[in-house]
């Protein structure tokens, strides 16, 4: 399989600040590739270099085999870009925004209206096609921005933080669209700091930290490499926190975290810990409401790699944990 993106030794200095530090990676054609990292890690800088908006200090970028430094024109024809801000022309209607983009990308004149209609219908904007985008909600502008990025049917789509601030319905609609485009052969490069997004969407994930690629693999293989982030989650009936002293010091438990009305006990060996917890409940006359073993989440991997420590994450972050929503990660 050919590579949609090849990055060799990519480096970017802003004056003396090293934002991207000799990065190497490839993205295969037809892949959904997640570029994951905390704020300021170098994600957007990398993506801006890949989309010709920023000149690298050093290194080489090939897009579908075309060297961006030598001739970016054929590469630009094959790229669709959805930046972090929904950069639609608010003074124009949804229809005019699409017509403008279609014209800039030289979509054949006879196909422009057909494609615009298809996209507006897909994104639920057809009824609002004659309304200026200044009257659109954030979610509607986002959908329009994505429609504008794909009207020329790019073979490679870049999305920079596609869903922050959107309602669940809009997020699901965008994920569905990304999957559908990918199924039709579009390579997708998603920059995100939303771990669940990467976990749900991506075939492979690169985690960037301090300008360097810290890890790159499939989400499941990344998780598998972090056995120490396995845990057992237990909920007791009643005021569990007050009635379960000593769990933390139980053999095999590395860290204990309160997660809502449950306790999460991190361990290298969940199967050995389970009977101990049951025994503990019996000896303390506690009734177990739920007892689950959890594999390491992508969030655990991310925190471990980017310098956060597993087990001291806040409840707020835990609220976003995919495993708590029953969306994967549970063993």
């Amino acid at each position: 399989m050919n590579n949609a993106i090849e990055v060799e030794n990519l480096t970017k200095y802003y004056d003396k600040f090293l934002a991207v530090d000799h990065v190497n990676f490839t993205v295969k054609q037809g892949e959904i590739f997640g570029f994951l990292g905390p704020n300021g890690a170098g994600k957007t800088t990398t993506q801006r270099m890949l989309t010709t908006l920023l000149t690298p200090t050093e290194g080489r970028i090939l897009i579908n085999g075309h060297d961006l430094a030598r001739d970016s024109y054929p590469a630009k024809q094959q790229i669709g870009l959805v930046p972090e801000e929904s950069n639609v022309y608010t003074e124009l209607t949804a229809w005019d925004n699409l017509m403008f983009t279609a014209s800039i990308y030289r979509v054949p004149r006879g196909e422009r209206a057909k494609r615009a209609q298809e996209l507006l219908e897909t994104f639920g904007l057809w009824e609002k096609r004659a309304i200026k985008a200044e009257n659109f909600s954030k979610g509607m502008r986002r959908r329009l921005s994505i429609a504008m990025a794909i009207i020329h049917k790019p073979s490679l789509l870049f999305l920079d933080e596609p869903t922050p601030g959107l309602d669940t319905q809009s997020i699901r609609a965008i994920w569905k669209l990304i999957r559908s485009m990918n199924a039709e052969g579009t390579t997708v490069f998603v920059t995100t700091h939303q771990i669940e997004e990467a976990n749900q969407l991506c075939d492979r994930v690169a985690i960037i930290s301090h300008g360097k690629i810290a890890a790159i693999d499939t989400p499941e293989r990344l998780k598998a490499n972090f056995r120490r982030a396995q845990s057992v989650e237990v909920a007791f009936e009643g005021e569990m926190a007050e009635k379960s002293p000593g769990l933390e010091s139980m053999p095999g438990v590395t860290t204990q975290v309160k997660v809502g009305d449950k306790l999460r006990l991190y361990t290298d060996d969940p199967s050995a810990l389970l009977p101990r917890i049951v025994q503990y409940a019996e000896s303390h006359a506690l009734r177990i409401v739920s007892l689950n073993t959890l594999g390491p989440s992508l969030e655990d991997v991310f925190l471990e790699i980017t310098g956060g420590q597993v087990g001291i994450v806040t409840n707020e972050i835990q609220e976003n944990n995919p495993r708590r929503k029953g969306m994967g990660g549970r063993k």
Partner: protein
Amino acid sequence: MNIERIKNELAQAWTVAVKDVRVYYLRPGMIMFGFAMPFFMFFSFSVQREMGAAEGVARLLAMTVFFTAGAAGPFIIPTERRIGTYDRLLAAPMSLMTLLLGKTAVGTIFAVAVSGVALLAGLLFFGTTILQPGLLAAGILLGAFSFSTLGLVFGSMPTTNPGDVQMPSTLLRWGLLFISGVFIPLGEMAPAARAIAYLSPLTYAQDVMNHAVLGKGLINPWLDLAVLALSGALFLWPSIKMHQRARVLGR
């Protein structure tokens, strides 16, 4: 570059221009700096001065072309950088020159339209006769091109705040206004002042308007037109360099 690519690039430049016309012409920044300013300046410096109607119309036309054409670049590009729409254009499959030509066309069209209003006012209210309409049309067009690309130089400064650009741009334009034979005719200037005036493209625009409206000027009208065309092309160079610099700086 093959013929098909050139056709595409020209169509893209036109698309950019038409979009900007629709989006920005009625914005307060454009109306203030592009439409109102030349008329304010004209009346401020021309009322109660001994000046014939034809001379006034020639001056008004030069000022209109100068201010209006130069208003677009410093307003539109930083505004688009701020709201992120400029990235869409930079990432599109067209050359930087195409994008800049599209932006140049916006100021040029604006200037031609507003100077048409000024010309109409001159014809209707002052009863002015245009002695060389062809020369006037060429002067307005090439003057608009030159001043539009001059405005683009400021618009290309790597900033996202139109205010950062409009201040130096306005300062330069006001400076040029006073050294370019608009308020003090070129023939009445001291030799040193006249030597400086020859460095300003506005001098040539005013001179070509004088030829077209008054039938007299100090410079050969063909030279006037050539300087306007050449300066317009030369002003694209710093714009390209500043865009390349912006890509390095990440702005």
